[in-house]
């Protein structure tokens, strides 16, 4: 536009305009008669036409200015690009670009002679672009004659805007292209491309090849801990081989070179690199597992091991109550004190309790919390509360299980929950202190573990009914089988009587460790009945032997007072067993009834417990071996791997790493990093040594000592055992 406009204006404004237009007008008016007729002459002469031209003059000025700006941008951008390729500093290149841009714009404006854009020149520009004006516009605004006035009327009706507007837009095209190219060169062209071009690799293929072959350079890793950790400072690592970060941390990795031909993967996941000036950058969030960041550029690669830092769960220590307790009555309160520590900050802490009520197979539970605290990232706190025993409405036999629990703020992999040791507070049962059981749990029933006296009576009664139809031998055999069960039950009763008397008592009681089938190691009492008096004397001796006199009431010793019903049962069982062993079940039944009645009296007294001494039963293996009715069919199996099977593989891998280090140190470093990741959980000492070795090799130091340390750790220390383990596991 500038050339066209300036050329036209320079040649036509001197007087040729009027002559030209007047000459053109003379022949044109007759052809445009319809125009004249449809638009009657205006009383204002050429005033409306002039106003329209003035508006167009403003538009033309704006376009001239825009052309100047666009050309300036293009020229400035190109100048920046050129200066970048010339290797000047960044500030200088932008300054130079600015100067060139301003100059170019000034030249454009100067050549367009925008300051001389008169109404006549505007009219001339318009009539050149709008053929419908028939080159009469200038004449219409310049003339003072009646003909000129009429011509002005005719021009005021003419529609020249559309072609003129199109011409305006066309005039902006080239400057716009110039601006775009300049911007592309100046702003978008990375420094690395400029460097490549400056180095002489002018064609694009050569540029790309050069960028690809440029060294990867060092990596800078910046780690920002997750918000919950409230760790303000970012950690920066330059050229790291290992980065430790809390799960959920934001990691920014920055490279020293262009993004072109550079790629990065986090384990198997490709990462999207983005340009950052003349460098590349990638960001990601760490997970809770170890990962390997691999950055590659052409044939070069760099590995960075990412290792999660475990956010420890709070450490909770219960100071009070200090130990398990038994309360005689469910009254009062218990002070609770616990301390809590956490590495990053405690969120909440409380005491938890569970009350278990019931016995046998029927238990009910209630639970609750006490002394709950919320904490705003404190790293240590003390928890205090009071357990109101009255408020829990406990019954005898109930057990309160207590512990302190704390949680941290970890909202990524947590929250981490820390618990203290638990304490059990038991409410004693009525009469419990008369007996031996003061352990935490309620005692099992006396006759739970053996064929009951009632069952033996049923078997004997059935045998008596069948006696007439059975041979003497059959009946004798069956009767003796019941006798063996009766003997076993009798010995169980004996154990109950003497169980409170300790080891010394066991020597005095009927305490053969057999199964009741004639394979016992008989002691002094087996094979003969004791009178109640004899048994009581034995119990008294045992009481004295324990060296711990027991309470008693009235004139009875405690052994007698507590065990009298069981002693009656014991002797009745002796009588019954003797009759059964002699093949006289009918005679055995009265004694068996007496034994059952005595056992029931004893049970009702709630004074007999077996707690703490489970029945010691010895299986007669030879008697039962392969006597089962059912047949199993074991399926083939594969032997288990040795426990240290993985160690051999790791050692082989270590050998390969050493070989790689000797051949290609850079590849060896990568192998060291990968091996470190593989062994860090099972062999932390080896992992530490491998990490040191990688750093030493990377920085050109001697890594022999670290590698030896790693080798020793992977080999495992010498294990000295005094004997072979009982089974396949290593003790």
């Amino acid at each position, binding site marked *: 536009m500038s050339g066209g406009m300036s050329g036209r204006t320079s040649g036509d404004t001197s007087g040729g305009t009027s002559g030209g237009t007047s000459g053109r007008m003379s022949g044109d008016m007759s052809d445009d008669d319809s125009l004249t007729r449809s638009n009657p002459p205006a009383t204002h002469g050429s005033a409306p036409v002039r106003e329209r031209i003035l508006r167009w003059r403003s538009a033309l000025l704006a376009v001239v200015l825009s052309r100047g700006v666009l050309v300036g941008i293009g020229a400035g951008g190109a100048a920046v690009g050129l200066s970048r390729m010339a290797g000047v500093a960044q500030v200088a290149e932008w300054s130079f670009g600015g100067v060139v841009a301003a100059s170019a714009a000034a030249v454009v404006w100067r050549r367009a002679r925008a300051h001389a854009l008169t109404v006549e020149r505007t009219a001339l520009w318009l009539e050149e672009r709008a053929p419908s004006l028939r080159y009469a516009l200038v004449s219409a605004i310049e003339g003072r004659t009646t003909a000129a006035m009429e011509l002005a009327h005719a021009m005021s009706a003419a529609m020249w805007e559309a072609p003129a507007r199109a011409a305006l837009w066309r005039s902006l095209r080239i400057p716009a292209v110039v601006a775009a190219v300049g911007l592309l060169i100046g702003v978008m062209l990375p420094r690395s491309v400029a460097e490549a071009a400056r180095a002489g690799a002018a064609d694009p293929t050569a540029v790309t090849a050069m960028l690809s072959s440029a060294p990867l350079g060092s990596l800078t890793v910046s780690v920002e801990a997750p918000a919950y950790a409230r760790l303000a400072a970012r950690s920066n690592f330059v050229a790291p081989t290992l980065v430790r970060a809390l799960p959920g941390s934001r990691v920014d990795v920055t490279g020293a070179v262009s993004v072109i031909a550079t790629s990065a993967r986090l384990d198997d996941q490709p990462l999207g690199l983005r340009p950052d000036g003349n460098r590349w950058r990638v960001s990601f969030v760490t997970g809770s597992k170890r990962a390997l960041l691999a950055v590659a550029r052409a044939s070069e690669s760099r590995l960075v091991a990412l290792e999660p830092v475990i956010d420890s769960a709070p450490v909770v220590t219960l100071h009070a109550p200090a130990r398990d307790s038994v309360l005689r009555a469910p009254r009062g309160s218990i002070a609770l004190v616990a301390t809590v520590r956490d590495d990053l900050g405690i969120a909440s802490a409380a005491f938890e309790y*569970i009350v278990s009520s019931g016995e046998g197979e029927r238990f009910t*539970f209630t639970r609750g919390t006490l002394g709950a605290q919320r904490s705003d990232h404190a790293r240590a706190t003390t928890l205090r509360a009071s357990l109101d025993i009255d408020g829990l409405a406990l019954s005898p036999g109930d057990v309160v299980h207590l512990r302190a629990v704390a949680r941290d703020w970890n909202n990524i992999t947590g929250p981490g929950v820390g618990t203290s040791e638990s304490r059990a507070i038991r409410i004693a049962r009525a009469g419990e202190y008369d007996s031996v059981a003061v352990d935490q749990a309620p005692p099992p029933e006396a006759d739970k*573990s053996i064929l009951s006296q009632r069952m033996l009576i049923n078997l004997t009664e059935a045998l008596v009914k069948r006696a007439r139809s059975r041979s003497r031998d059959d009946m004798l055999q069956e009767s003796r089988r019941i006798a063996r069960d009766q003997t076993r039950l009798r010995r169980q009763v004996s154990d109950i009587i003497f169980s409170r008397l300790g080891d010394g008592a066991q020597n005095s009681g009927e305490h053969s460790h057999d199964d009741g089938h004639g394979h016992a190691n008989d002691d002094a009492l087996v094979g003969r009945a004791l009178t109640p008096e004899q048994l009581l004397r034995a119990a008294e001796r045992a009481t004295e032997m324990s060296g711990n006199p027991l309470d008693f009431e009235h004139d009875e010793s405690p052994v007698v007072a507590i065990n009298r019903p069981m002693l009656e049962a014991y002797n009745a069982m002796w009588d019954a067993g003797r009759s059964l062993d002699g093949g006289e079940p009918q005679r055995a039944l009265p004694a068996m009834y007496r034994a059952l009645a005595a056992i029931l009296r004893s049970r009702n007294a709630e004074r007999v417990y077996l707690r703490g001494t489970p029945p010691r039963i010895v299986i007669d293996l030879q008697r039962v071996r392969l006597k089962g009715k059912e047949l199993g*069919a074991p399926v083939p199996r594969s032997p288990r791997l040795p426990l240290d099977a993985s160690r051999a593989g790791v050692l082989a891998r270590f050998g390969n790493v050493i070989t790689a280090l000797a051949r290609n140190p850079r590849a060896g470093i990568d192998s060291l990093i990968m091996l470190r990741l593989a062994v860090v959980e099972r062999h932390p000492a080896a992992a530490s040594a491998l990490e040191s070795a990688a750093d030493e090799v990377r920085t050109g130091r001697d890594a022999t000592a670290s590698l030896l340390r790693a080798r020793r750790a992977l080999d495992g220390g010498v294990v000295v055992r005094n004997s072979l383990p009982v089974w396949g596991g290593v003790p």
Partner: protein
Amino acid sequence: MNEFVFATAQYESGDWDSAPLLPVNLIDSIARYTQLPVSPTGAIVPLGSSDAMRYPLLYLTGHLPVRFTSQERATLTRYLDRGGMLFVDDHNHDVDGMFHKTVTDELEQVAGKLSKVPTAHELYSAFFTFDDGPPNTSHELNGWGDNLIHPYLMAATRGTRISVLYSNKDYSSEWNFHPDNKRFYSVDNTRFGVNIVVYALTR
């Protein structure tokens, strides 16, 4: 060859000895059906003691809440890492009971998440074959406890091997009787216990 010793884990909280006859009953069954050398009596081993390492299988049960001490947790972790197997049975037979809630919490801390053992698992064919998975107990069939029949056992594994076997089926009640009383059963209900032992010893 060393003989197998059936060991009951003694933990500090709860009633670890709630099924005192189960060990001898299973010892009897092992002798009755297999030729495995087995000790005629069981052993009781504190869970916090390194003595636990001497036994390939530990049995743990109870009704009351289970809270392992830190020593017990550490020992159990080491025990499982070294190839031991822990068999835990809920004597309450109640998924809403405190034994279940607390012991599963503890086990998942020590051994990892418990997941269902499929009925085709080799545990069910290690010696006797149980096509339908774990055999039901009379406690389940009678509607005691949580009134549920649990079709699966749960387990945590080390590799492909079960390291912790967890049961809600109340085998502790089902098998807690004197072995001589097996003569009153038409089919021995402790056979699955043999499978557990054989699996622990051979897989």
